[in-house]
């Protein structure tokens, strides 16, 4: 009897190894250990090569606080994210609203609006570099609209708005799909009841649809904030920090600290602070918007 019990136990452990083992192994080696060591290294002066290192407490964090370029890139990223989040959510919501009623070819429109989203960050940046530096410039010269024909990526503001435009272009369609799912989950009877009660269209939108869509809004804001804040590929390919590191996002700043100037532990402290700020912003947003959610 005891033998049978023991055999069953071994078999059970074997099942855990088969089902969870690979996932746990890969995840531990390439995620958990790097995460843990990165946090630990932020408190040391390890140079990335030598075997030994010293504990330096909060020294690296103090350096981060004094690094003006880092805080410039942080502020740049937050400002950039603010505009991208607002624009992409407004557009995504607007398109989902248009597509919330049965219109001909709805699936085709949806696919085409989503299309920019499938392009990878590097390709995206080079595609738009052509649009800004060639198409916009020729368009501006032809029409006399000097905003279009400015020297793109030679001023801080042109790089900033270029990034905002490109990220809005790629993110809006994605948010549209999520809002669209939210719209189709709304029970039509609510809107019918409101119509019968004599509510106008704007009233229905603001008093019925938007409150019912709060879960989608929470979700879309969260996604947009995270995508915008974590910007890297497009930053690299579109502006590459030009001019003079004035369009450098936080990830690019951390990357150059850790890999171009080889200050790994300094970079680790930077990424640690960055993620803390990101988490605080995301949690505040989720708290603010989810408190407005209503039961359907």
């Amino acid at each position, binding site marked *: 009897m005891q033998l049978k019990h023991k055999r069953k136990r071994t078999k059970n452990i074997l*099942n855990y190894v088969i*089902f*969870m083992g690979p*996932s746990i192994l*890969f*995840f531990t*080696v*390439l*995620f958990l*250990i*790097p*995460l843990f*060591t*990165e946090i630990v*290294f932020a408190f040391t002066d390890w140079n990335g090569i030598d075997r030994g290192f010293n504990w330096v407490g909060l020294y690296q964090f103090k350096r981060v606080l004094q690094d003006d370029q880092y805080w410039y890139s942080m502020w740049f990223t937050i400002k950039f994210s603010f505009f991208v989040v607002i624009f992409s959510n407004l557009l995504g919501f607007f*398109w989902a609203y*248009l597509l919330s*009623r*049965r*219109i001909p070819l709805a699936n085709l*429109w*949806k*696919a*085409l*609006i*989503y*299309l*920019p989203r*499938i*392009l*990878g*960050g*590097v*390709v995206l940046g*080079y*595609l738009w570099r*052509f*649009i800004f530096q*060639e198409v916009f410039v*020729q*368009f501006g010269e032809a029409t006399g609209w000097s905003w279009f024909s400015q020297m793109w990526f030679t001023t801080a503001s042109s790089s900033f708005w270029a990034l905002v435009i490109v990220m809005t*272009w790629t993110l809006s*369609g994605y948010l549209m*799909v*999520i809002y669209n*799912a939210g719209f189709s989950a709304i029970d039509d009877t609510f809107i019918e009841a409101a119509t019968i009660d004599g509510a106008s269209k704007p009233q229905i939108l603001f008093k019925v649809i938007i409150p019912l869509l709060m879960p989608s809004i929470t979700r879309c804001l969260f996604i947009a904030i*995270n995508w915008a804040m*974590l910007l*890297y590929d497009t930053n*690299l*390919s579109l502006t590459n920090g030009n001019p003079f590191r004035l369009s450098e996002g936080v*990830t690019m700043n*951390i990357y150059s600290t*850790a890999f171009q100037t080889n200050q*790994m532990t300094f970079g*680790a402290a930077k990424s640690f602070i*960055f*993620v803390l700020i*990101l*988490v605080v912003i995301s949690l505040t947003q989720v708290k603010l918007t989810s408190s407005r959610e209503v039961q359907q």
Partner: protein
Amino acid sequence: MTGAKFKERADVVIRLILVAVSVIIILIPIYYTVMNSFKDAKEIADNISALPKHPNLDNYKDAWRRLNFPVAFKNTFIVTLFSTIGVVIFASMNGYWIARHNNPFTKVWTVLFLSGMSVPFQCIMITFAKMIGLLNLGNKYFGVVVSFWALSIPMAMFLTSGAVKSIPIEIEEAAIIDGCNAFTTFWLVVFPLIKGTIFTIASLNVLTYWNNYLMTQFILTKKNMRTIQIAMQSLFNEALFSWDTAVAAVSLSMLPLFIFFIIAQKQVLGGATAGAVKG
């Protein structure tokens, strides 16, 4: 009544016009890029909006050679394929087991995997790069593939876990009585039932893997190991060339994605909403 019907019609027409105008504006950048890729540099500089006078593939030949496109395509394809297959296998098994076994061990790992979903790659990239060197995974397909597994298992696992929970457990109990063990129960009974979610996970990840740059660049640095994204970045970084080749390179690297999107459009759009659970 006819008035109401007319209003209804007008509403649809207005929506249709607004959507069509939006779509045109969205597609303008892609249209200009692709259209100009058939012109030479002088034609582009003369009038960017004019259709190509002598459409030819010279730019594409140049871009094909400079990107080393067949090799870059092959690398991207291999990495994407094996990453996707692996994540589906490992994450679905893991997600299934966690959904069906509620004990301290699975609970602890659920929390740890959850951390994997909420901590961005940026926070681990420095030591991750060291780890790749330490494990000697640099410039190996396996290195990229296994890293993608590690990073995307959490989300894929939670998606399968959710799908498994919606299946009545009686089906599995019946399978066990019929002589299935845990392994065959999962693959023969449960897996076919969660196929929809599996397709969603796959299509969601295919695009992520195909387009990844930040993580891949740490691993695939050799010239003949480059993926399309990395080949694009080094092309624009290293070589001096004119916009005619550049737009052809951009168009060329977009092409596989467009083909994939046309084929798997439904799954990709479905995946977009499912993936949004992340968070």
